[in-house]
């Protein structure tokens, strides 16, 4: 461990040269301090994110490079912050490149209420959100679904929740893919996965999932901010969650399927979760159809929660539907068929982003028309005590990273380390002292998610901006944080 050869390309980009069985080099967006931390971590622990970048570079059909964004940390076979793009004819799909929380992502909504009004009624608003949005282990949503309805969720995505009264029609225009992906096949999702989801649509979950009320603290790129409808003190609500238990079960179920496929097709398995199948194999196609179903489930989940949040604001501040609108919604644990230029030729690729956000730059047709001149908003969650960011992709990012960005701060300390170092009550009290209201279902969760357990998100986004891959648009500071 910790013996991966790595060379500096420039101050914010490092390369693992192609050698041995690697099909492409590895490229990591990082500064020297981050690289030293990753090397040290690889030497002292079983977890070696740099080795994981190298292992992904060995997968068949990978194009250009095995990439890691600046929030890189060790994952299950594929580093968190990892991006891999695969040729659809010769490439593979791996469960590790999507993970257990399929289409986990962030929705951010803009609230047309002055920040000062929110500040005045912060406690009441926090209580109302905490009461209204189901969160934490064992929470159940307002929708109680049958097997037939779950299949509809998996095919219809956000529209399923919209048609049951959660949100407004215009929401879908500002969700990645319009809130539904094609290619979903509920028949590829197990009965157990569906049964686990009967009551979980419209629930936040626990762990690092959250709902935050935030305000724009600083504007870095005013033209882009204007296009996004953001300025100093604009209030927003961000929802971070995914496909819940259904996604977890899909991951678990397909570990075995893809393990058998790896053996069948002679794909070397370098880590247990890095099992894979050719994209154009029955097993690969089934897994992709199951993941697409999970992606739609996450869209439905965030749409339902978005509807609940909108109702709370309407009740608390006597605003109409138009008083709380969408900025954008984008996932960060996904697979997607996308068209990118490789060696001067535009090609269809399967792009896996594990803890990495799609960050399409100006001009891409997938970006909503209003945002197309500047690129899509990239929503990057920080910690409950620090800040989050809205970034935008760049043309250089399209060339270098298949249009990708960081997804968050990235953990610095394991949950176990965090529990040893922090107490939930103390974390909540300290943040209250800074004017941040925390509502949690589990105080242990607050300790695990303490701001000190994460990397400095400011440094993470500065690395990406320094590399020219993403640009900061605004920084968001938290006022209220709801956690499971």
């Amino acid at each position, binding site marked *: 461990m910790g013996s991966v050869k790595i060379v500096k390309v420039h101050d914010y980009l490092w390369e693992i040269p192609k050698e041995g069985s690697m099909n492409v080099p590895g490229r990591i967006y990082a500064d020297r301090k981050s690289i030293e931390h990753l090397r040290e971590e690889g030497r002292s622990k*079983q*977890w070696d994110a740099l080795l994981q970048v190298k292992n992904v570079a060995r997968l068949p059909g990978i194009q250009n490079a095995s990439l890691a964004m600046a929030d890189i940390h060790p994952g*299950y*076979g594929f580093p968190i912050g990892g991006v891999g793009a695969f040729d659809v004819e010769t490439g593979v799909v791996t469960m590790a490149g999507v*993970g*257990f*929380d399929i289409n986990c992502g962030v929705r951010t909504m803009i609230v047309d209420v002055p920040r000062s009004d929110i500040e005045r009624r912060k406690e009441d608003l926090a209580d109302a959100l905490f009461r209204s949005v189901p969160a*934490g*282990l*064992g929470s*159940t949503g307002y929708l109680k679904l049958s097997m037939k309805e779950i299949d509809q969720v998996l095919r219809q995505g956000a529209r399923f929740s919209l048609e049951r009264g959660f949100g407004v029609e215009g929401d879908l225009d500002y969700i990645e893919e319009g809130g539904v992906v094609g290619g979903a096949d509920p028949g590829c999702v197990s009965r*157990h996965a569906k*049964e*686990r989801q009967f*009551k*979980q649509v419209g629930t936040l*979950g*626990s*762990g690092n999932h959250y709902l935050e009320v935030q305000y724009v603290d600083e504007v870095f790129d005013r033209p882009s901010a204007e296009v996004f409808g953001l300025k100093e003190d604009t209030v927003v609500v961000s929802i971070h969650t995914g496909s819940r*238990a259904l996604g*977890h*079960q899909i*991951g*678990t179920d397909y*570990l*075995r399927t893809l393990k058998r496929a790896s053996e069948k097709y002679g794909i070397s398995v370098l*880590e*247990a*979760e890095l099992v894979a199948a050719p994209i154009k194999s029955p097993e690969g196609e089934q897994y992709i159809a199951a993941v697409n179903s999970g992606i739609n489930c996450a869209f439905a989940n965030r749409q339902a929660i978005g509807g609940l949040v909108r109702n709370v604001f309407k009740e608390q501040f006597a605003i109409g539907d138009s008083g709380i609108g969408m900025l954008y919604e984008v996932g960060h644990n996904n697979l997607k068929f996308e068209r990118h230029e490789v060696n001067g030729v535009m090609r269809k690729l399967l792009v896996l982003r594990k803890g990495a956000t799609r960050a399409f730059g100006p001009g891409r047709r997938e970006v909503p028309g209003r945002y197309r001149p500047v690129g899509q908003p990239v929503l990057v969650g920080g910690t409950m005590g620090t800040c989050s960011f809205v970034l935008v992709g760049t043309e250089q990012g399209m060339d270098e990273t298949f249009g990708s960005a960081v997804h968050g701060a990235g953990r610095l300390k*394991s*949950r*176990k380390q965090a529990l040893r170092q922090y107490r939930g009550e103390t974390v909540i009290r300290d943040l209250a002292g800074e004017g941040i209201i925390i509502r949690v*279902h*589990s105080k*242990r*969760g607050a300790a*695990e998610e303490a701001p000190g357990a994460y990397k400095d998100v400011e440094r993470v986004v500065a690395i990406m901006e320094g590399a020219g891959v993403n640009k900061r648009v605004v920084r968001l500071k938290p006022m209220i944080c709801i956690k*499971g």
Partner: protein
Amino acid sequence: MGILGWGQSVAEAFEEAAAAMFDLMIEPGEYKQAVIGEVACNGNTLVELLIEFLNGILSISDRKEMAAVCVDVERISMSDGGWSLESRVFGISRAEAGGNLLTEVKAATYYGSSVAKGTDPDRWEAKCVVDL
């Protein structure tokens, strides 16, 4: 988060690994338990059996809306096709558990997993990392 269970047999080590996972999900304590259901699974190796077993418990707990607090591994056996396990899971309803519920476990993973005898030849150890 890593979990480790140990015991004088593989079955006992599995039960203890599950108990470690339950401690992440619900405050340890005395609960009036009911049967959640049975988890039967198989694996080519003992590690695969462990991961299937733990994920089976997560799955049945969600489906029955229960919080697992204890498991009884009734049988672990080996045949030409690999290992198989039968167990019975006990717990309480999530509504009843209320404020004692802690963190969701998304899945048991293969990362850092092993099932082997420890330095003490009478002690089996079962460990893995669970995704929270």
